[in-house]
């Protein structure tokens, strides 16, 4: 699992994540042999009413209100005492300012209260390391897709290099906002409900822009066109087959188009670096249609796709604990006076000392 085996004892970390609308706290152990064991993984999600998104101030308030409850639950589930914990890890960024700082302050408080070291973690690196640990993918091309990020990443020389990315809004943001247009539920997640609706579509494929440039892509124009089609639907418009357009048709067409784009840029990166493994991480990575399409592409190239389920795909505390503990084991610490958070923190800024 990329962890050097020459360790003497079991290490335990508590990870705190709150960069968007999920508050997640988890406890992980790295065994003597280097194996990572999930001891607990507790999450509480701030769900906004249909037709609306989550605002930073409301989300931050949610995280502050639930932090203590979730942290206690995580410790209880893990059956560890405070004395067993080696370090407290928290998300330094990227993400929404308000929610990030609420959780950073809480993590700092725990560290001072318990007398533990702090480790600030890059959220994207957390996703990647968790995906690798769970799936066992050795050196994959990573597609990181969530509400705030869309990146195609490969590891080279101590950094996760970004080969391609969304030039405007993230793919998950495109889906979230389209769910708002359709005023469908945000519970458990807007993307999940779009996926369920899309399963009822398939009769027609509506024309949407397809915006890939090399290994980069763009989603704002697609969202604008999908919104136009939704307005047409509400006005009783018909599709290419003369039948009325339905929300299922819209969700199906949107998914087929944007996932084809994501698979294409991943394939280009795989050809570029000569890799046969694709790993999907981030909240959108739960989508089974995306996993299926990626699997088809990887199989054609003689490789395979690695993906995880909602426990690890969607933001969680475990991934922060795991990536933080990997850094901690190489001697990395975040001194109290530097324990800030930042909305902008690129994946390739992190020096990945724990990999060869």
């Amino acid at each position, binding site marked *: 699992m990329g962890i050097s085996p020459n360790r003497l004892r079991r290490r335990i970390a508590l990870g705190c994540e709150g960069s968007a609308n999920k508050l997640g706290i988890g406890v992980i152990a790295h065994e003597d042999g280097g194996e990572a064991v999930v001891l607990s993984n507790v999450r509480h999600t701030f769900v906004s009413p249909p037709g609306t998104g989550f605002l930073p101030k409301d989300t931050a308030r949610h995280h502050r209100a639930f932090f203590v409850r979730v942290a206690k639950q995580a410790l209880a589930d893990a059956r560890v005492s405070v004395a067993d914990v080696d370090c407290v890890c928290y998300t330094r960024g990227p993400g929404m300012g308000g929610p990030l700082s609420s959780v950073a302050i809480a993590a700092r408080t725990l560290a001072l209260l318990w007398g533990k070291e702090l480790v600030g973690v890059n959220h994207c690196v957390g996703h990647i390391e968790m995906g690798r640990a769970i799936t066992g993918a050795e050196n994959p091309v990573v597609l990181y897709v969530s509400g705030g990020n869309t990146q195609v990443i490969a590891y*080279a020389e101590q950094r996760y*290099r*970004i*080969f*391609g*990315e969304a030039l405007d809004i993230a793919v998950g943001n495109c889906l979230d906002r389209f769910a708002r247009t359709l005023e469908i539920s945000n519970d458990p997640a807007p993307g999940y409900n779009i996926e369920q609706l899309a399963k009822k579509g398939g009769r027609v*494929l509506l024309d949407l822009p*397809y915006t890939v*440039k*090399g*290994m980069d892509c763009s989603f704002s124009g697609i969202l604008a066109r999908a919104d136009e089609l939704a307005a047409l639907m509400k006005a009783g418009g018909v599709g290419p087959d003369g039948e009325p357009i339905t929300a299922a048709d819209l969700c199906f067409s949107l998914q*087929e*188009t944007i996932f*084809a784009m994501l*698979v*294409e840029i991943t*394939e*280009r990166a*795989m*050809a*570029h670096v000569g890799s046969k493994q694709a790993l999907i991480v981030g909240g959108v990575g739960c989508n089974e249609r995306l996993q*299926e*399409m*990626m*699997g*088809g*592409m990887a199989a*054609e190239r003689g490789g395979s796709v690695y993906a995880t389920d909602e426990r690890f795909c969607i933001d969680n505390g475990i991934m922060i604990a795991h990536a933080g503990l990997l850094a901690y084991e190489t001697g990395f610490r975040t001194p109290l006076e530097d324990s800030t958070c930042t909305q902008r923190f690129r994946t*390739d800024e992190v020096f990945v000392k724990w990999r060869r």
Partner: protein
Amino acid sequence: MAASETTQFAPPQVLTYDPAAAPPLLISQGAEGRLYKTTHVQRDRPCVLKYRPPKPYRHPILDARLTKARITSEAKVLERCYRAGVRVPAVYALDLVSGWMMIEWIEGMTVRQGINDWLGERPEIPPSPEDLPDDAPLIDAMKRIGAAVGDLHRTGVVHGDLTTSNMMLRPQKNSQSSGQPEVGDGPKALEGDVVLIDFGLATQSVSDEDRAVDLYVLERAFASTHPRAERLFVNVLEAYRGAFKKASSVLTKLEDVRMRGRKRSMLG
């Protein structure tokens, strides 16, 4: 990039019509599609078949739409360049439904290989200034690259993926009338016309920004592929400046693009 392990692919149907012809040779397999060497109409007329196979993971309607749009766009760009006298492969034939395009076979080696052969085992830092080898043929080749890119941009096309692997050095016909082997012999390695290839990401544009990004991509690719010749890259830009009227404003824009930096730090 010969892909012996990928020969399990069945060639596209168009390559099976003439069983007596020499078997098509798969020369590369990228994310975009496959390249075959075959012949066009006459058996002594070599050509490249660029085949974009259907992608089963993609919705068939979307797949057909994309294949059609991409072949059309690439063929249009090549045609535009060819008519304007820019050195590019000529388009022989295409089939938008089956997803292939036949283009002229360009003789010679890639610029990448030519430069690497020329640089040979030379150390990165010469032992002393007097030992600096005579780089005149390399400088001359760089100037031909700059002129070729300038010609392309003057025509209203940006390539989108300029690297030294996407440029060929085509030997000039009249100088090779003796019929003797022509490639690889030391000083001759960098001779020939620079021919641009692979227009899969090309677009029609006359904006300074797009042209400057094109040059920047080439500059970055050059630095990573040929670090030992990086200091000579100025010759490319110098020749580019002389290639068309608006070149100097593109080079001014290039300064901005460099300052801004590309967000991606690993390209080419």
